[in-house]
């Protein structure tokens, strides 16, 4: 049976008819053309399909679209700046060469968005745990962790600076 689902996808309200048997992964890719969301294992093991639902990273392959009614969805396409520029997280991935084949990258970047969003400072061991829901078969994770460390530290410094400035005001 078809159902009409209303979501906010990458900041835009969408109204989309979906088959009730559909996963969010299928809806995002096949109906909305958001192909940064990768179809990997389809059983929630590899993390390639990771998107944010109401700010939290989930595996969209095991998320029923009918449950997304009224939710805010963010994919890598939604990170683009007003003039098409990359987000600081994406830049960190580029600069640290944290990408080889690129299949796991959009999912990892979405987890990074959630991690960085907490504003907390994490060490490498903690970051390993936080990205443990992703499989990368190319890089050995070293450069991915370098990128994560870099962006987490940069964001932390910025938040601390803002906090100090606020205090002085």
């Amino acid at each position, binding site marked *: 049976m078809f159902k009409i689902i209303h979501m906010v996808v990458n900041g835009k309200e969408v109204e989309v008819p979906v088959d009730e*048997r559909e996963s969010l992964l299928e809806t995002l890719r096949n109906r909305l053309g958001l192909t940064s969301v990768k179809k990997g294992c389809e059983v929630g093991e590899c993390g390639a399909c*990771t998107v944010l639902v109401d700010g939290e990273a989930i595996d969209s392959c095991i998320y*029923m679209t*009918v449950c997304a009614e009224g939710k805010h969805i963010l994919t890598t396409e939604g990170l683009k700046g007003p003039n098409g520029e990359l987000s600081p997280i994406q830049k960190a991935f580029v600069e640290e060469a944290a990408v080889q084949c690129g299949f796991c990258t959009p999912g990892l970047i979405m987890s990074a968005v959630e991690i960085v969003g907490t504003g907390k400072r994490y060490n490498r061991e903690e970051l390993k745990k936080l990205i443990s*829901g992703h499989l990368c078969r190319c890089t050995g994770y070293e450069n991915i962790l370098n990128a994560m460390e870099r962006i987490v530290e940069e964001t932390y410094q910025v938040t601390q600076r803002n906090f100090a400035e606020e205090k002085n005001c």
Partner: protein
Amino acid sequence: MYDIESVIVASTVDEAIEELVKNPKAEVISGGTDVLIKIREGKMAGCHLVNISNIPELKGIEMDSDGTIIIKAATVFSHITNDDIIKQYIPNLGDAVDQVGGPQIRNMGTIGGNVCNGVTSADSASTLCVLDAKMELKGPEGTRIIPITEWYQGAGKTVRKQNEILTAIRIEKENYEGYHGRYIKYGKRKAMEIATLGCSVMTKLTPDKKAIEKLKIGYGVAGPVPMRCVEAEQMARGKTVSRELLDCICENVLKEVHPRSSWRASKEFRLQLVEEMLRRAFEETVIAGGGNIDV
């Protein structure tokens, strides 16, 4: 596309129960991190689902005026770990559910689903056993409360009827106050792993920190369902904390557990884990409680 016949997204518990009564073949789905995997494997082809993951009254953690902690059944693992009440009073449960799957799974999977599956390896189960959790079920005939010791009926089977919803898990003050707890999971990997064995220990020391006032030992995968080692617990009560006592506890525990061999591990290895993990967890809870095992 999931191989299902239909799905209804319920917005209240009563609506969900009504749907389950209307269709006696319908099954409950919560976070979906287990059910949708089964569906992907083609094991539930043509099923009817009632989805309860978006029901507001099934979300969140509260404390009653008498100190009972109420965890609503559709609360996801990450929200339990990060909850202030859990962090303050039962951090061992927060730690246990922080070892389920990976971060994305913990943002989706719910504690209610974890116990309604009825599997022995569920990371929350052994800790809920040592917390003597009370399971609140709601069905067409009203609400009933089942102690977790009576919850599991066999591998993959619980007392929950098809038309009932687990609404909350209640943990009474007397079952957490004064205790220190620790859950240890053994798996081949640190993440995305099903427990080869899970051991959960809670220890309450006497006011002088020298003896055991109460000890609770729970296991996952040491039998067909999550279990407690009641005889070992009773034997330890009132005894002075020492290495010799720990040896005795282990001896008793090994008589009570009955793990089996599976492709994940042999029975012999599981028995070794039963003892070793108990030793580590017990020692840690004693130290956390201000005691010392080597005095």
